């Protein structure tokens, strides 16, 4: 599978149906809410496609990993905007890979369970029963015995209680801070009106490239830069929008 195949990867998600390439474009243009995109389904689609092929290059995998990592980070930041205070845990790559595999496996199980339910529903489609009370049935009163007003006060107190801290264990993959790249790109744009993204990140690791891509999306979202690309997966040119 080449980069072209990654681009053409067909997705059938709740929020989006079409090639992976178009998904990325829509996210880039702020036309698709990342919070609604099931990243796990994208990964599952890729793994299935990958397993079908006899010959494939690891370039495609790398390409995919970079893009999916950027999507994940962007989504995490959308869910927890206060990045500086996010208690992201340190995880070594081995642990992170294990956790990712576990999450994927869990999700696959529930996907399989959903399929089982769907089949069951189809098999039961000729079973009809009455919903609700029988006709000619007098309405039954449901009297309540005396109640304690203290229960009402307790219920409201519970609603006013501070919510527990949300667990972030599921977002435990560690990335270098996006702010590093935000500052770096801003500095570059102070020196010259435009630069080619791919040249700027060529020497970086895959993970760093992913975060850099994310920083680019953030700058685009904030209206600081304009992006141009001759065709999907061609080099991205970045202009200062100010």
């Amino acid at each position, binding site marked *: 599978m080449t980069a072209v195949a990654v681009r053409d990867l067909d997705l059938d998600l709740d929020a989006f149906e079409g090639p992976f390439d178009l998904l990325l474009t829509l996210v880039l243009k702020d036309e698709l809410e990342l919070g609604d995109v099931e990243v796990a389904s994208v990964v599952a689609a890729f793994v299935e496609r990958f397993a079908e092929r006899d010959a494939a290059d690891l370039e495609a995998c790398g390409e995919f990993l970079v893009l999916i990592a950027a999507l994940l980070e962007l989504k995490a930041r959308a869910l927890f905007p206060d990045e500086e205070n996010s208690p992201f845990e340190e995880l070594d790559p081995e642990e992170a890979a294990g956790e990712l595999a576990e999450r994927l496996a869990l999700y696959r199980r529930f996907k399989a369970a959903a399929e089982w339910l769907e089949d069951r529903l189809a098999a039961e489609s000729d079973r*009809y*029963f*009455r*919903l*609700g*009370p*029988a*006709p*000619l*049935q007098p309405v*039954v009163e*449901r*009297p*309540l*015995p*005396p*109640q*304690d*007003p*203290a*229960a*009402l*006060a307790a*219920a*409201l*107190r*519970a*609603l*006013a*209680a*501070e*919510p527990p801290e*949300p667990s972030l264990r599921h977002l435990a993959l560690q990335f270098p801070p996006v702010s590093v790249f935000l500052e770096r790109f801003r500095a570059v744009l102070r020196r010259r009106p435009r630069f080619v993204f791919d040249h700027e990140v060529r020497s970086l690791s895959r993970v760093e490239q992913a975060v850099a891509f994310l920083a680019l999306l953030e700058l685009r979202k904030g209206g600081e830069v304009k992006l141009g690309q001759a065709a999907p997966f061609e080099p991205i040119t970045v202009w200062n929008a100010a």
Partner: protein
Amino acid sequence: MERGMSLRLVENPVDRLARTIEALLVIAPGPLSVDELAAAAEDDAERVETALGLLASRYREGRSGIVLEHVASGYAFRAAREAAEACARLVERPVQRGLSQAALETLAIVVYLGPVSRPEIARIRGVAADSAVAGLVERGLIAEAGREQDGGAVRYRTTPLFERVFGLSSLSELPRLDDLAADSAELRARLEEVAGRRGA
């Protein structure tokens, strides 16, 4: 025996229609007219009436616990009279001891902040309040109290029955929540703020 076998094989078509009508009546939420039965069974009204006659003799008092009843709006199954006491024991189940968590929260919001609308309740609870509100209205503990503004959402307040059930001679006897907020506006603001952070 031979004869019996062949008779079963060449089934009387009215028997089949009668079974279809049994099926329709057992799932119907209300009485069905001859025309409604004929339309659903895709058969003609006259044959439906013949089949209903067959069913009336089968589902009758003394012979079956299910009785076919003809009321103004059509036909429906009901329980036989001989089973009336058992049916009464079934429907008059022991009174429920309390309210569900969803009902209690909804009621507490109406009591302390009322009148409030369903969208306001949903915002504070973080989940839709439709069925909880409907349940409390059905029990007579809350009632409609006008709309938010022209064309706005319906608001709810508590009823005199609520005060009786909770042993209050007036709402001023409710346990105080002074430690949470000075007045109901402040309480509402606090609840909405917490709900916003609870997210979900």
